[in-house]
């Protein structure tokens, strides 16, 4: 006899059945949307990836087996675009994770005056539409007339060509990216403010310095949020598209330094209409993202601390 039967719950009551039905009814818009607009396109792209489907020549689709996947290994732009994405990630990821924590720590400080003002100030850029923000930054970073170089010139420093120099384009992209850290900053701050003050008081009694309190109390306590931000940041980097696409019109300028993987994928699918190979590129991106996310989840057991006492 199962536990369910023993508890008298083997056969759901009419009320429970009705509630379940209504539950599904209320869930159905999302479920139908998920099936129609997510699962179906995913499955379709899997099928496309084994064909030579071109959007403008639908009548001549044929099964090509693994040809599109083989092409991934000989297409030079796959290597280039993955390299670009990885190089940018090495620069952007640490900054994108550390800065929200640093800003949150600053806003959490009891010495800071005008916290609501700064909180709003740091979050506000996040609500600016991304395309508008990119155009604004394009102006700010212009080597000739941009504000940043004007300021640098005021102090006698000739500003670099931020957007057209292969050595400066990644710092420029990072600067633009910092515009959008408001969300990560806010949830980090909320997490920081949720750390029980008793921990800090006990540490103070034990003579712990401010840095020691931050290192041994704050960081472990907010590690789930850092982990969350990290996972989102990695996925975001794999999907990185709008900023380089708008800045360079998808040319990869300067050189191939902004030829991110998603730009290669987008152009293949929607500019060159090569939906078969584009689908293979999408699946490669999916696999890589899953691998990185899996590695992060695996590593989490060693450094993410959950308040319930378990380290997973």
């Amino acid at each position: 006899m199962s536990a369910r039967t023993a508890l008298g719950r083997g056969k759901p009551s009419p009320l429970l059945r009705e509630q379940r039905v209504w539950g599904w009814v209320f869930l159905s818009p999302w479920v139908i949307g998920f099936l129609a607009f997510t699962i179906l396109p995913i499955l379709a792209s899997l099928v496309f990836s084994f064909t030579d489907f071109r959007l403008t020549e639908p009548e001549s689709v044929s099964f090509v087996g693994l040809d599109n996947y083989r092409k991934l290994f000989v297409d030079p732009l796959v290597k280039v675009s993955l390299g670009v994405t990885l190089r940018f990630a090495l620069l952007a990821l640490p900054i994108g994770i550390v800065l929200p924590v640093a800003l949150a720590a600053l806003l959490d400080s009891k010495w800071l005056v005008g916290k609501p003002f700064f909180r709003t100030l740091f979050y506000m850029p996040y609500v600016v539409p991304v395309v508008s923000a990119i155009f604004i930054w394009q102006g700010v970073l212009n080597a000739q007339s941009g504000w940043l170089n004007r300021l640098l010139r005021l102090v006698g420093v000739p500003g670099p060509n931020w957007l057209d120099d292969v050595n400066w384009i990644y710092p420029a992209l990072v600067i633009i990216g910092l515009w959008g850290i408001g969300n990560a900053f806010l949830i980090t701050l909320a997490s920081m403010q949720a750390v029980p003050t008793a921990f800090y008081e006990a540490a103070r009694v034990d003579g712990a310095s401010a840095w020691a309190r931050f290192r041994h109390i704050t960081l472990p306590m907010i590690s789930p949020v850092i982990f969350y931000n990290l996972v989102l940041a990695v996925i975001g980097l794999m999907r990185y598209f709008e900023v380089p696409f708008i800045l360079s019109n998808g040319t990869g300028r300067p050189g191939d330094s902004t030829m991110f993987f998603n730009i290669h994928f987008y152009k293949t699918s929607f500019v060159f209409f090569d939906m078969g190979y584009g689908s293979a590129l999408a699946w490669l991106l999916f696999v890589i993202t899953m691998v990185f996310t899996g590695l992060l989840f695996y590593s989490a057991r060693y450094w993410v601390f959950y308040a319930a006492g378990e380290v997973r």
Partner: protein
Amino acid sequence: MTAALAVLAGAALAQPVTITWFVGLGAGAQPEQQAAQDAIVERFNAEHDDIRLEIVYVTNEVSVTTLSTLIATGEAPDIVGPVGGAGSAAFAGNFLDLTPLIESTGYDLSQFPEAAVENQRTDEGLIGIPFASFPAFLYYRPALFDEAGLEYPPAEIGAPYVLDGQEVPWDIDTLTEVAKRLTVDANGYDATEPEFDPTQTVQWGFVNQWAGAGAARQNVTLFGPGLLVDEAGNAQMPDNWREGWRWYYDAIWTHHFMPSADEDGSDLLAAGNPFESGNVAMAQSHLWYTCCLSGTEWDAAALPAYDGEVTARLHADTFRIMRQTDNPEEAFEVLTYLTGPASMDLLAVYGGMPTRPGDQAAFFAALDEKYSQGVNWDVARAHVAFADVPSHETPMPNHNRANDRLDQFKSLLDSQPGLDVDAEIDRLIADLQVLFDEAR
């Protein structure tokens, strides 16, 4: 029973054929443009019992993906347009050759200038009837010439220029010299003077206005027409275009009279609308640039010659019949209606110069109301006869990829100093060859 079937069959036969007109690849999808087109559709339907015309508007930003999706799903429209050569080239292979329909209906092409008809011819055949023409010519700012003590460029094609009191041919060399004198830095030095500081340029001599993404070939047509693919289907860079690219690159990085990519995007050049900024003395652009040029401090002049020949880019928007149509005859009837009886109303909506010479006076009268300075529109009209044939918008094998590679090439020249242009051209040709071979 038989009679009833006959009635039903008769009713079925009497059903009008539906022709779908897709608007959005070029002009026409703006809300303020739709009412006039809707009225034309209504008028057409009122006049035709056998054809029902339906119009579909798609905003320009999503028109390419929408049309490609419609084609992919077997729902391709019958007619698309207005669309220019560049927009059409993205869908090369999807348009119907009109030649058999023109021959079977006896449609008279002699009403259009021959160059305008040839401009519509591609490897697929004649894929359009001339409708709206946008010849390129030279826009210039007289005040900047006055300030530099220079004569204005000639209005007549082939006429000489007076430089330092002497008549010289109005050619690329003269344009280069004049453009350098019109390029000025913040300290007032021009680009011919040794003290000139190119990092402090505040006024440029010349630009190819809006010849950027998707239109790289526009930047070398001053050096004559050309094709990047030879008769055997191999990639090539015609000698005149090779020289054109060298000149283009030197204009930016050696002589500094053309803005680099970064300068082009600066506030000094209206963040991408350089001639409009007032800080550029001369711009090669098409008649369509009047869309976005305010003020009256400008005039029109002749393009310079290269090797004794003047070549003027020609953009020609028109309507095309998709090869997927089930009803080519009916689609052709609609096409000739749009480019015929409805053309003046549509041209007014799109702002295009009628390709039929007889219809042009009314168009320019309307432009004169906008530009009270008295622009010499004969300049624009005259350049149609010097259209680049073959067109710089001629589709290439594997066109979208090849055009993308060209964009990368131009972007490199625009943004990177110190390049070996010939080596970059050779790299471009090698890459184009790979792309062309893929299409074989």
